[in-house]
C-alpha cells in the first residue's frame, strides 16, 4: 500500500511543503528513508518503531520505503516524525479513513508515543497559510504559538494514538482557539524599571533620546557605575511592538528554538547580550544550517555589547554591515538565508583597561599606549554608527537624589512614543522610520539650521575640538531632541544639548 502525507520544512525563515510518501511491500524487513534526509530524520526510524509499538499499533514487519519529496532539497530536524508515523500507519491500513490527506502534520515523537514540541512552528504555519494550507495537527506544546496565526484550523494533540483516533473519527477534537495579540500584550511586565535607577540623570536623558530617535548609544564609565542596569531599562521605554513586528521576532526566535512555549509569541522587545567571546557566526548567524545569530535575535530590540573593547576586533567589524543594511545574509554551502537584523546597538565600555581613566577617586595606572590600544579596538567606522556617547558616573547619590521623585518607564515611554509618532509622520513617504536612519539628503531636507545654530556649531567645534564627522551625528540627535520637545525646527538649545552627548570625542581628543 502507498500513502502520501503532508509535512512542512524550513529553509531559513521560509517554509516549503514536503510530501511524505510511504510504500509498504513484501520483502526483507526494514525501513529506508530517501530524499536528502538529514541525520535527525534518519534517526527517526528508531523513534518510529518504538512510538508506534508503544501506542498500541503494529509496526509492519515488511519492507518500508519512505520518500521525502521534493527529493533535491535538504531536510533536517525531528519535525517529520509525526508525518512519517502517520504515513506508515496509513500505508499499513491502521488508519482507515482518507481524512489524513486534509492535514499538515508536524511534531517529534518520543519513544512512548508522546508528541514533543518542535522549533519554527510560527514561520512554518505562516508560509503554509500563504501557500493555501490551513489545517494542521501539532503537538500540544506548540499550540500557543500557532494560535496567533489567522485563517488556520489547528488541532493540538498529546499522543500519536490521539492523532490516529481523531483521523479515524473515533474522537472529536476542537480546534485551538485563536489568541489576539492585544490580549497577550497586557500581561508582560518587564523586571526592571527606569525608576529603579537612582541618579544618572544625564544618562537617563540620553537613553530617552536614543530610544526616541532609534540612535545607537555608547555608555562609558568605570566598573560598577550601572551601565548594564541602564541598558536593561532600554526595552522598557521602547514603543510596544506591533503585531507584525512581534511575528517577525517570533519567527526568528522560533527557528532558533528559544521561544517560550508558555506565551507562544514574543511580546517584549528582545534584549540580547552576547558574551564578549562570541564568534562571528554566533553574532551574525551561520553554522551548517545557517541559523540566525545574535543580531537577528535582537531584531526589533536591543543588542547590548557589554565591555565592547573586549570583543574581538573582527567580530565588531562584522557588525558594520547589519548596522547599515538592517539585515544579514548568511551564506553557507547548502543554503543562503536573509535574516532581518534591525536592532538598536547599545555598547558599554570602561574608559581604559583599569577603568579609572579620568576618575575622581581612583588613580589610573594605564599608560597612554595601553589606553590607545584599548580604544583602538573600536574602529572609526564603527564609532561613526554610534550617535550618542555618554559618561555614566560612579557616585553615591543619597544626599541629593532621594528627594526627587523618580520617573517610571511608563512616564518616559509616553514621551518617546510621542517623538516616534512625529517621526513616523515625517518619514511616511521616505521608507525610514526614525531619525537615526536619515540619509544626508534627508538631513538637508528635514534638519535646516538657522544662522544661530550654524554659529553655535562652529564655535563649539573650535572650542571642544570635535572631529568633523561628528557634525551629522550632532544634527541627527538635535533633530530627535527637537522632536521630544515637540518643535518643528531645530534651535540652538537642541544643538547645545546634542553636543553634550559626544563624551567620547571630548574625553579622548586631547
Amino acid at each position, binding site marked *: 500500500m502507498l500513502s502520501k502525507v503532508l509535512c512542512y520544512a524550513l529553509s531559513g525563515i521560509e517554509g516549503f511543503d514536503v510530501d511524505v510518501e510511504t510504500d509498504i511491500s513484501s520483502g526483507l524487513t526494514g525501513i529506508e528513508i530517501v530524499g536528502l534526509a538529514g541525520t535527525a530524520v534518519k534517526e527517526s526510524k528508531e523513534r518510529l518503531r518504538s512510538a508506534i509499538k508503544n501506542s498500541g499499533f503494529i509496526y509492519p514487519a515488511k519492507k518500508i520505503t519512505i520518500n521525502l519529496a521534493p527529493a533535491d532539497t535538504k531536510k533536517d530536524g525531528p519535525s517529520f516524525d509525526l508525518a512519517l508515523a502517520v504515513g506508515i500507519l496509513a500505508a499499513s491500513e491502521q488508519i482507515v479513513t482518507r481524512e489524513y490527506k486534509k492535514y499538515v502534520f508536524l511534531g517529534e515523537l518520543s519513544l512512548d508515543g508522546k508528541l514533543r514540541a518542535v522549533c519554527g512552528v510560527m514561520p512554518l504555519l505562516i508560509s503554509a497559510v500563504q501557500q493555501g494550507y490551513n489545517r494542521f495537527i501539532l503537538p500540544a506544546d506548540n499550540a500557543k504559538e500557532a494560535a496567533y496565526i489567522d485563517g488556520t484550523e489547528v488541532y493540538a494533540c498529546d499522543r500519536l494514538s490521539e492523532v490516529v483516533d481523531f483521523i479515524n473519527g473515533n474522537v472529536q477534537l476542537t480546534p485551538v482557539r485563536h489568541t489576539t495579540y492585544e490580549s497577550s500584550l497586557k500581561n508582560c511586565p518587564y523586571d526592571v524599571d527606569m525608576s529603579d535607577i537612582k541618579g544618572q540623570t544625564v544618562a537617563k536623558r540620553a537613553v530617552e533620546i536614543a530610544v526616541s530617535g532609534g540612535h545607537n548609544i555608547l555608555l562609558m564609565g568605570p566598573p560598577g557605575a550601572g551601565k548594564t542596569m541602564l541598558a536593561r531599562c532600554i526595552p522598557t521605554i521602547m514603543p510596544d511592538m506591533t503585531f507584525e513586528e512581534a511575528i517577525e521576532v517570533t519567527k526568528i526566535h522560533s527557528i532558533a528554538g528559544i521561544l517560550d512555549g508558555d506565551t507562544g509569541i514574543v511580546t517584549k522587545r528582545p534584549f540580547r547580550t552576547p558574551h564578549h567571546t562570541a564568534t562571528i557566526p554566533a553574532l551574525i548567524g551561520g553554522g551548517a544550517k545557517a541559523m540566525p545569530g545574535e543580531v537577528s535575535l535582537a531584531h526589533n530590540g536591543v543588542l547590548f555589547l557589554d565591555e565592547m573593547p573586549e570583543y574581538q576586533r573582527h567580530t565588531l567589524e562584522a557588525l558594520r554591515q547589519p548596522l547599515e543594511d538592517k539585515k544579514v545574509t548568511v551564506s553557507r554551502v547548502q543554503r543562503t538565508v536573509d535574516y532581518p537584523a534591525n536592532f538598536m546597538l547599545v555598547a558599554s565600555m570602561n574608559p581604559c583597561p583599569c577603568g579609572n581613566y*579620568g576618575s575622581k577617586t581612583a588613580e589610573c595606572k594605564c599608560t*597612554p599606549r595601553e589606553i590607545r590600544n584599548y580604544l583602538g579596538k573600536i574602529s572609526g567606522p564603527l564609532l561613526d554608527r554610534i550617535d550618542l556617547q555618554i*559618561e555614566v558616573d560612579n*557616585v553615591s547619590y543619597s544626599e*541629593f537624589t532621594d528627594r526627587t521623585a523618580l520617573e517610571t518607564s511608563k512616564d518616559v515611554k509616553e514621551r518617546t512614543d510621542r517623538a516616534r509618532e512625529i517621526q513616523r509622520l515625517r518619514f511616511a513617504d521616505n521608507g525610514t522610520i526614525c531619525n537615526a536612519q536619515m540619509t544626508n539628503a534627508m538631513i538637508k531636507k528635514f534638519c535646516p539650521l538657522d544662522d544661530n545654530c550654524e554659529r553655535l556649531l562652529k*564655535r563649539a567645534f573650535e572650542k571642544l575640538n570635535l572631529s568633523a564627522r561628528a557634525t551629522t551625528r550632532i544634527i541627527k540627535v538635535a533633530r530627535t531632541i527637537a522632536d521630544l520637545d515637540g518643535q518643528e525646527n531645530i534651535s540652538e538649545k537642541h544643538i547645545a544639548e546634542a553636543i553634550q552627548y559626544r563624551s567620547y570625542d571630548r574625553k579622548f581628543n586631547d
Partner: protein
Amino acid sequence: MTEFNDTEALLLLNTIDGIRLKRRHALLAIARPGELLTRIDYYREKIVGIIGSDLFEKLKDALRRNLLDREKDDLYKHGITAISVYDARYPENLKEIYEFPALLYCKGDISLLKKRGISVVGTRNASRYGLNVTRDFVTEFSRAGLNVTSGFARGIDTMAHKSALDAEGSTTAVIASGLDICYPAENRSLEDRILKEGGLFVSEYRLGTAPAQFNFPERNRIISGLSEALFVPETRIKSGTMITVNHAVEQGKDIFIVPANINQPSAEGSNLLLKQMQGALVLSPDDVLDEMGVPHGVKEQKETLQLNIYEMKILEILEKSEAHFEELIAATGLNANELQNVVFNMEMNDLIERTSGNYFTLK
C-alpha cells in the same frame, strides 16, 4: 695636517662612544677642542692619560677617515645647528652650570637660547589639577613674554609646551635623545607644531642616540640651566622632576611650587618640597612674575556677561567646590535637558569647565 675649529672638534669627539660627559670635560681642560684635535699628536700623552690608548686610536682613526663630512651632512639634512660653548650664540646661563654641555644640537629658532625664560617640569601622570595649573601659569608666563622650557615628556611637560604655543608664546624642548628621534612617539604632532610655530628643540646628544635611561638625569641639568627659574606644577617624590629641582638648587635658580592636595599621589613631591623650602610657595602666576621681576600687565578684564539666575546659582555653588550634575539639578530645580543648556552656555563662555564623570568646576 687638517685644521679643526672647536665645533668640528666637538662633533668628532661625540662620535666616539666611550667619551661621555666627564671625560669630555677633562679633555677640554687640556686645551680648546679645535686646538686639541688639530695638534692631536702633540697632546697625545695627556689625551691617553684621560681616555686610554684604545680610545685614542679610535679617535685618530675617526680623524683619518674624515667622519666630519658625514656628521656635517647629517646635521644639514635634519636642519640642525650645532652650537659649541665657544660660540657667541651659546647661552650665558648655561655656561655657568656645573658640567655644562660643550656642544648643543639645536633645531628651530636658536635665538630662544638667549631669551629670558622659565622652565616648567612635572610628573608624567598628572592630575587634572596639575594640568590646569600648568596651563594657567604657562599662559601667563607666555603673555609676559617669557620663553617656556620643558622636557617634552608626557603629562605636565606636554601641557607646558602646548599651553605656551596656545598663548602664542615661544617654547624650548630639551630632549634626552638625538634630535632625529621623537620620544615619546605619540608627541610627534607636538614636535611638528613646536617647530612650525617658532619653537626650539635642544639636545646634547648626537643624532641617532636612543633615549637611554641615564640620559634623562643628565638632560635635566640643561632644562634647569637654560632658564633663570624653575616652576613645578606637580611632581611625585621619586621622579626626574626632583632631579631637575636638585640641579636648579645647585645652579642657584629660583624655584616655584604650588601646593596640592595632600592625598594626591601625583603631587606628593610638590608638598614635600614645599615643606623643605617654604620660600618656593606661589599661589598665582603673578607671584612668579613679581619674584622674577618680569613686568606684567594688569589681568585683562573678562567681558562682563549678563548672568541669569541659574548661572549665578551655579557659580555660587562651584565657588565652594566642584559639583556633580545631579547636585546642580537639585540646586537649580531644572530638568536634565534645561540644565544641559545652561552649563553648555557657561562652558562656551569660559565660566566653568566640565571634568570627567559629569563634574563641573570653575574655570
